[in-house]
């Protein structure tokens, strides 16, 4: 299942605002980004990947052409998907996110977007002790993998930091 990067145009953000943008006190909370696919050939969308920048909730609407005779209509694929669990703090604010096509074939087009990758959380393990039996079962899986791999020499560093025996330095580099 090879993946191909589909070129797309991402336009600038448009703020949804009631009233006059210049005079109104409040700042808009909703921004719209229009994404178009200039390539003519149809393709099957599998995954959407992006880096978040302070968006707390994401909705995706798709413009659907069913036939040449009926006008295209907008369909909501994803509504208020949470990218930042606490919008007032940094969690998830600058994360990389993937949205995947759902595996189930019975689901029809507008709902294909399923739950994305949970935000990577390096801290998860630090918060508690993994269940020892689970760790143990993971060890077993890992063991199975190591068995498949043929012997290789250790990559333990010998700890050289000099170049050809020389480590004479004057100043640090700023680049």
């Amino acid at each position, binding site marked *: 299942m090879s993946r191909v990067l589909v070129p797309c145009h991402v336009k600038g953000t448009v703020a949804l605002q009631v009233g006059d943008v210049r005079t109104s006190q409040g700042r808009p909370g909703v921004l719209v980004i229009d994404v178009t696919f200039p390539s003519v050939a149809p393709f099957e969308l599998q995954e959407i990947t992006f880096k978040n920048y302070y968006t707390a909730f994401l909705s995706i609407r798709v413009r659907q052409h069913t036939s040449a005779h009926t006008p295209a209509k907008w369909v909501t694929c994803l509504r208020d998907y949470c990218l930042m669990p606490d919008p007032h703090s940094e969690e998830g604010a600058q994360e990389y996110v993937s949205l995947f096509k759902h595996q189930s074939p019975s689901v029809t087009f507008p709902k294909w977007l399923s739950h994305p990758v949970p935000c*990577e959380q390096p801290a998860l*393990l630090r918060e508690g002790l993994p269940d*020892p039996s689970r760790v143990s079962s993971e060890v077993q899986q890992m063991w199975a993998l190591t068995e498949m*791999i043929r012997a290789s020499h250790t990559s*333990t560093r*010998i700890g*050289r930091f000099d170049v050809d025996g020389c480590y*004479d330095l004057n100043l640090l580099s700023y680049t």
Partner: protein
Amino acid sequence: MLQEESDLSLIIAQIVQKLKGSNLYSQLERQAWASLQRPEIKLESLKEDIKEFFKISGWEKKLQNAVYSELSVFPLPSHPAAPPEHLKEPLVYMRKAQGSWEKRILKSLNSMCTELSIPLARKRPAGEQKELLNKWNEMGTDEPDLSLFRPVYAPKDFLEVLINLRNPNYENGDSLSFRTHLGLIQVPLKVKDIPELKECFVELGLNIGQLGIDDSTQVPPELFENEHVRIGQKVLAEQDSAAAQQYIRQGSPTALRAELWALILNISSQPEDVLYYEQLKTNVIQHDLLVDSLIYKDVKLTASNDDYYFVFEDYLYQVLLCFSRDTSVLSHFAFNSASPPKSYIRGKLGLEEYAVFYPPNGVIPFHGFSMYVAPLCFLYHEPSKLYQIFREMYVRFFFRLHSISSHPSGIVSLCLLFETLLQTYLPQLFYHLREIGAQPLRISFKWMVRAFSGYLATDQLLLLWDRILGYNSLEILAVLAAAVFAFRAVNLMEVTSLAAAEKKNHLRELKSMYLDDIVKIHGLFWLF
């Protein structure tokens, strides 16, 4: 579901990759070959028999501990599209702040080199090498003139940088608003509140026995202690890192601590580790580095002046000098927001094949750095073992105390957690101190940066570090710092200046204070 499975296989692949190059891997392989001679290993059931052999002979446990250690140290694999710097620190403005802080340090080091006309590094002449080798065990007797050297930075310089951190996407405004943090830290990181802390540190609840606390439970202390020691011996006999980590959350008996920490950190002191340490020593003998003088100076200014630690002066030099030459430390920069400084071999400026890291481990010591090592000297007397433990503690914990990052154990989060706890649970005290110009963080920052080393009596400090290891988190430092303020609240409400707040009997001298008192205090927190 599918996602979780592929995450798991990614983690497994990453760990396999790491372990494949390890000594343990080749040892396991050797053991497997050797086991073929054994009568119980049959050709028909070779795989199962070898597995069984590993289980019985204890090698399986060693593998488990190695896997567990990898899981505790390295962050989970991140999104495939994320660049390596994202693993170092996900927030761009934090990375930038760390970058410009590093640049300041570089400039300061370079100007020291220029002013004093000394190189960053040079090879020692043979005579000098011999001399250093001879006095390796008594480097403390040396009194070089270090008056011209100054620490590259001290915690208070670093605090200024943290105070000026801003999220460019956050509307702060100049005027005081409900959004402004009343403390010094202005970045909106997520820190745990009391219910979350309670859930995380559940073993520190008042209803659970703690070593060193006399009256926390109904159980008579001797009974609890005897039972706790017995369990500790059992944990050690099992040689299981995960169990040791769980056990130590209630504090370690003094006699078992050294072994328990080594087990948790997965340090076994194999002959090759001793050899590696000897190699580092050779590197120290061969090359003279400018950072050596900074290390000397730091030890003289801190540990040598400390009633508890001055006896370890020679150990500290040995460990810290070897540490600066250890290139294996470099690998932790994959998940540290800091980056190692770079230099070029003399006369080869700009040629990439002559680019090197400086110092070889990439870590520039600051004022107080040696205090990370000093308490460990009480536990380990064998230099190579002491060294390994320190290195592991550094790449697991201590680096987070002087790098700008958004990690929950990072110093920025600790500062914010400290301020938030005080502000939430001691609002009057917080307000009072703020009004008299004694922001609490200005007092507590140095405690946290040094993980309280030098500020608590050693036995109490080790009990505190037990918890750091047990929870694999530094957050307890912020909780303790807040608890100290709670403990001194009545006195502090009466002071009228920062200097007075720092005065003896208030906050500066913590050594007279026992951690169990403080645990009682932060036990109060758990009641909320």
